[in-house]
């Protein structure tokens, strides 16, 4: 939908060939999953649980500043690992092949106010199927922001840097709200829909459990450290929210990432779907630790191409995927975390102001549709 379609030079045949090459990359990893991969996820889960327990233990004495610092830092890291490298990826079904009922997308519940069941629907089905399609993918601006020059400007968008910052601080609640499709469902008539009410109750139960754990029970167990532990768990949740929000902004918001019109995905082929994922995602470069802390969403492009591949294998896949970008002369959007975060925020600020309507060059496959 940008002024120049960066895929215009590809023929329909090339796009299908690209699809076949990506299928081959996927098959190669799928058929080589094994003991090492299983050991990896079990190790991460074990480390995460021990780190969380130890940090919460230290926080029982959070009245002492060094204990507060160590405990808060540990709990923040544990919460990030739990949501990103473990929760997100387990809920994607990346580890279902192990047939371990304790590490399975259908049984997993995560440290997050949105119940796994609802998140799987809005994230795995809607976001991953309709990636970056305006009006279909709620991840695009979360319904509160303008993310493309072509979207109509409204005075409400002037505040979008602020909305985005508030959303970042309370990100897990923002996600719960949009998994519930609150914006749409708060209309009077829809509010009484029994299905919506059941889902809202499930979110309510999940929030109650999370709040009770982090803000009541754990501080109470800390006795004289009640207030400092409360501050610690709040801080850890805040750090986790800011971090995951940043990682996710880097995945689809930086400059160079394409968005798509509803009609452009009509009758989309497998190859075209792959191409949309390639053009609609961006990576973060960095160290191995960085990749783990982002839940390997630093390999967002590879994750969007193959959402059910075990996360520890994205790094090796990225080398092959990048070679395909070069072969087909496509732009592989990537950069360091600060650079990508800045780029995404820059876009949020820029689009908060109205702009001249760009001259849209219709993408190749739209032309065919128009002609047909």
């Amino acid at each position, binding site marked *: 939908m940008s002024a120049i379609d960066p895929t215009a030079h590809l023929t329909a045949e090339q796009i299908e060939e690209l699809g076949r090459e990506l299928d081959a990359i996927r*098959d190669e990893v*799928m058929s080589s*999953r*094994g*003991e*090492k*991969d*299983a*050991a990896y996820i079990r190790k991460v889960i*074990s480390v995460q*649980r*021990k780190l969380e*327990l130890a940090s*919460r233990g230290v926080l029982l004495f959070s009245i002492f500043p060094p204990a507060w610092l160590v405990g808060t830092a540990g709990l923040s890291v544990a919460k990030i690992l739990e949501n990103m490298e473990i929760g997100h990826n387990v809920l*994607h*079904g990346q580890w*279902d*092949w*192990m*047939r*371990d*009922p*304790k590490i*399975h*997308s*259908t049984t997993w*519940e*995560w*440290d997050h106010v949105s119940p796994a069941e609802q998140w*799987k*629907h809005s994230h*795995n*089905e809607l976001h*991953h*199927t309709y990636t970056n399609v305006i009006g279909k993918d709620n991840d695009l601006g979360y319904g509160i922001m303008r993310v493309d020059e072509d979207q109509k400007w409204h005075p409400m968008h002037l505040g979008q840097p602020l909305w985005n910052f508030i959303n970042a601080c309370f990100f897990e609640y923002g996600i719960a709200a949009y998994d519930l499709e609150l914006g749409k469902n708060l209309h009077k008539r829809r509010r009484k829909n029994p299905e919506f009410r059941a889902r809202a109750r499930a979110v309510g139960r*999940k929030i109650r*459990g*999370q709040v*009770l*754990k982090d803000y009541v*029970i*754990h501080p109470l*167990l800390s006795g004289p450290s009640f207030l400092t532990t409360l501050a610690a768990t709040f801080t850890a949740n805040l750090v986790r929210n800011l971090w995951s929000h940043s990682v996710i902004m880097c995945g689809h918001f930086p400059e160079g990432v394409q968005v798509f019109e509803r009609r452009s995905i009509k009758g989309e082929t*497998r190859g075209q*779907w792959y191409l949309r994922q390639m053009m609609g995602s961006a990576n973060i470069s960095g160290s191995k630790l960085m990749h783990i802390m982002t839940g390997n969403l630093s390999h967002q492009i590879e994750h969007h191409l193959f*959402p*059910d591949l075990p996360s520890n294998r994205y790094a090796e896949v990225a080398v092959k995927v990048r070679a395909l970008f070069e072969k087909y002369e496509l732009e592989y959007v990537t950069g360091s975390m600060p650079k990508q975060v800045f780029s995404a925020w820059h876009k949020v600020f820029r689009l908060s102001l109205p702009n001249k309507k760009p001259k849209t060059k219709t993408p190749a496959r739209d032309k065919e549709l128009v002609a047909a």
Partner: protein
Amino acid sequence: MTSAALRSRAWKLLELVTTPLLPSDYLDLVSPLRAGADLRGRIEAVHKETADAATIVIRPGRGWRGHTAGQYIRIGVDVDGVRLWRAYSVTSPSNRTDGRITITVKAIPDGKVSNHLVRKVKPGTVIQLDQACGEFVLPKTKPAKVLYLTAGSGITPVMGMLRDTELADAVMVHSAPRQEDVIFRNDLHDLVADEKLRLVELHTDTHGMLDVARLHELVPDWAERETWACGPTGLLDAAEQHWAEHDLADRLHTERFRPSVVVAGDGGEVTFSTTGKTVDADGATPLLDVGEEAGVLMPSGCRMGICFGCVTPLRAGAVRDLRTGEITEAEPGVLIQTCVSAAAGPCDIER
């Protein structure tokens, strides 16, 4: 308040702290065999029996309720990262004092679990266990005369019985390809030396296959004996026929290791067991579509195999992955993506 009620209160409080996980998720990290945990076992040793058979010594978790000689256990072993479940007879006596149990496994060609257990598994490995079960056991009142009719690895449940219960008059007819293939051969000959067992040992490489119709030549009083038979399907089918022909079917007890053979073909009859519907499906239509057309409430998502919104237990039969052609066979715990799987023969979907 009773101590049990107090414990349950304390446990509830713990659950509030560990939510959304359970306290056991943390305890499992340090103490997988504790009381109250899912039943597991730790492999403590692997002893070679023959070139392709080994006895696995397992220390079961605290929840283990014991077994009766002749019964089997199901074990869940991670092979190449994938949990696979198989059943094996317990070969240790039920009164073993150190609380350990043993199973004896023969590696079969292409057998993922059996080869893993015989050749690869390391002591220290934790495996999943189920409580012992099976009806292939001796009755409470010891029969006066017994015949054990076994072949190959079919000896395993009978070895459990021999080690457990001493009988006044026991005869065993056992066949294996060669002398060196006879599992527990030394144990058997020790029993013979102690006059606790009369053994007829046959080697099929030299003697040919055991012909059940000529059993009377080996054991003249076979018809008077309560018989326990375990071995390949061919042997058991022949035995059942032979005993039935002599109107002695109630004297024969058999144990089969492989009750059903999965036929992976193109398409087949699909049963949705929860809903109670059965329809014919071809080998190209996703089971999700098949179910929906039959009016079964199927969970669904992306319909292209990426979101795992449609995964459903496969209770029986086989399905083919429409993307790779890979066949998945039913086993406990096997879930399939219905949107990219088609019937590969008759199958049963839990919806």
